[in-house]
């Protein structure tokens, strides 16, 4: 994957929030002309990171890959939304009431479970230009409140 800068990640996304996947199912679906297995994950949204709250307290995210019957599909680089694992998520609207994780794994940061609520970047993709401006580098290890400040800076920068 090409590494997104924090500015790109924030401005491409429609929402950024902390949430916990509660349920998921996979099925064959058609995206464009592609017939593939996708996973739909219901996420309970706990708090907004970017001040752009989601329209509902729970949102549905679609990711590529999954298991349907005895057939499975893996798409390296895609976000892995683990049920029960709270994470900071940057999402884009795919259709009404359906979202995707922005930049695949680059928009998904599980929180540490030691009480500090720090973001943990999972660089589960082929990245380009993963320099210091890359979102995965700027967000990795930050607390949620620190990330809120960074995201706010990016959003206000975009309005000037």
């Amino acid at each position, binding site marked *: 994957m090409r590494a997104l800068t924090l500015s790109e990640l924030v401005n491409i996304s429609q929402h950024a929030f902390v949430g916990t996947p509660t349920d998921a199912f996979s099925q064959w679906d058609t995206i464009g002309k*592609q017939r593939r297995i996708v996973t739909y994950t219901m996420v309970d949204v706990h708090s907004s990171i970017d001040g752009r709250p989601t329209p509902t307290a729970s949102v549905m995210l679609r990711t590529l890959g999954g298991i349907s019957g005895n057939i499975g599909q893996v798409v390296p680089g895609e976000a*892995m939304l683990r049920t029960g694992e709270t994470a900071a998520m940057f999402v884009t609207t795919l259709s009404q009431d359906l979202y995707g994780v922005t930049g695949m794994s680059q928009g998904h940061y599980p929180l540490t479970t030691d009480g500090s609520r720090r973001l943990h970047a999972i660089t589960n993709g082929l990245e*380009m230009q993963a320099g210091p401006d890359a979102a995965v580098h700027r967000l990795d290890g930050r607390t949620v409140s620190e990330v809120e400040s960074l995201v706010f800076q990016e959003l206000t920068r975009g309005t000037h």
Partner: protein
Amino acid sequence: MGRTKLRGALSVAAALSLVTPRAFAFCQTTTCDASGSQVGCAVDANGCSTKGQPLYWAEACLSFGVQEGGSPRRGITWQKADSIITTAFQQWVSADCGGGVHPSFKMWDLDQAYGPMICDEVQFNQNAPNANIWMFRDATWPYDSANATLALTTVTFEVSSGRILDADVEINSFAVDITTNDPSQGPVGADLQSIVTHESGHFLGLAHSRVADATMNASYSPGDISFRTLSADDVKGICTIYPPDRMVAACSQPEPVHGFSRYCADASGSSSDGSTTQGTKGCSVASMDRSGGSSALATLAATLGLVVLRRRRATR
């Protein structure tokens, strides 16, 4: 023992041999990597999935094809793409597992025998012929995150065994400045040879590695061509998944699941050329593709294709 039974027994033996612990940083993709909603999955310190069935091709004969269009947007012809992808697979096939032996699989370029792939879709057909297709996306990127994705490999597998059934690769030529030249020939952008060598590792069942110089490392910088050649970690990975002494039927002819077609199948399970597997068993390459003619002709064509391929490699 019939061929099917033998293949089943060998598959079980291969699967068992793949779950032994290892000390390297490379990761083998497992069924747990398909989605995060599965119960009982875990990762180790290297980020490798430690649970689930490891993914692998059970056959010794693997095949691929390249979609006929190439990438006009990036000035990449089908011939150029086919050559680059062939070279990438050759890196993995010829990996030195020690003592001059190599991983226990061979790659067949079906384009050389039957012509370029017509189908430009990611497909795994449960009731129709298949092909492992590399394709460029020039007009649009059909998923979100167009600016973040260089290429996307979709590996389809059997959950109960981890056996890989199909693999298709989409290259994002729509949004990414992909180049094919050497640094001595001009600026290198997103180097196609590097991207393809990385993606072919996924095609073969490898996940990302945290070893900095590994081709399967997740970080790639534009202009870098080091991914074109394998690191020691990559070699360990491919030799572990496909050990040279693996018990597997000899390579004679590639046979995608339900046979081969270079045409897409429609929703009913028929290929665009009208072929279908209904009522057929043990479909060969030739029986599925109108360009193949008879089985004998197809076998001859495949043999000629292999010869052509070898000659091309020999002249590089």
